[in-house]
């Protein structure tokens, strides 16, 4: 049997209601969040992303200047790693006094660090491989997400 043409497929699919559902019951979290008055700490939550954003832009500018003026030879992995370390340390300092919501997050972080080392090892043989650099960036992002997720004081964890 031949496939329907793409336009008809699109029309049919867009007319159907989506049946996709969340993997967990989201209501208990919502119920708890609306039972509490809106938190005044919202300003703190808006403040920190701005600070880290400004820091990231400053570091990026510094790196760009450093790479173009001071060190003409390119080493993207080293620059990414330096940028990531700054971000990671800033987050760890930010959350220092805040208890983590799970006990095994350090173990999860160790696993991500092992993945980071494996990608870095591969990059030593092919330093400017775009796919490997992207993979390294994703592992770094997962580490930052993990640190944020286990410490973020929102209903996301409820």
């Amino acid at each position: 049997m031949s496939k329907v043409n793409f336009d008809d497929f699109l029309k049919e699919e867009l007319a159907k209601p989506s049946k996709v559902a969340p993997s967990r019951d989201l209501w208990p979290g919502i119920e708890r969040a609306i039972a509490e008055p809106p938190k005044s700490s919202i300003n703190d939550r808006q403040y920190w992303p701005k600070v880290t954003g400004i820091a990231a832009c400053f570091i990026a500018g510094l790196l760009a200047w450093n790479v173009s003026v001071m060190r003409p030879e390119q080493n993207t992995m080293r620059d990414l790693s330096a940028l990531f370390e700054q971000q990671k340390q800033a987050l760890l300092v930010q959350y220092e006094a805040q208890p983590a919501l799970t006990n095994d997050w350090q173990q999860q972080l160790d696993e991500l660090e092992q993945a980071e080392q494996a990608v870095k090892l591969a990059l030593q043989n092919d330093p400017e491989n775009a796919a490997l650099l992207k993979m390294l960036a994703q592992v770094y992002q997962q580490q930052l997400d993990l640190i944020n997720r286990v410490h973020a004081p929102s209903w996301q964890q409820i």
Partner: protein
Amino acid sequence: MLIDAKQAFSNTNKDEQADDLVHKVQQGDQAAFAQLYRQHEKPVFALCLRLLADQQHAEDVTQEVFVQLWYKISQFQGQSKFSTWLHSVTSNIAISYLRKHKNWLQKVVSFEQSGMDEQSLAMCNGLNGLDKLILRLPERARLVFVLHAVEGYRHEEIGNMLGMAVGSSKSQYHRARQLLQEWYEHE
């Protein structure tokens, strides 16, 4: 003709029930809000998933939408259908979430966020054929396609929402359609 009349009556009845439920929630009725949540949970989650292409983030944003809805439902004046208004609230919250949680590397390096991988797609239950393809699209193409083709926004509105030129919105839509067609025909 009789069937049409029955259908029209049933639709009117449903609309009245929906209005009544929204009115109760506006009065602070939590039980009505729970009912409203159950009615709209799936379409809101589906929209979040299509825009964010990440199940965990889509669940977080769905919660955020309903928490904000509780506090802002008084702003709904009944000038449009409640579900239309809720979809517009959801789109704005999801886009704002994307902006806030933009990959730190994307801010400094021009990596375009790719779509969902095969493994993550397999973990989402109930995806239809088109959703499976939409979630594979790169971020900008996906956002424009969902907002234009699924949610019915005009390119001018999308440009304002996403902070891009109207021409970029149109070219991202064209790119999305091309990719979707290519994937569909080679499936």
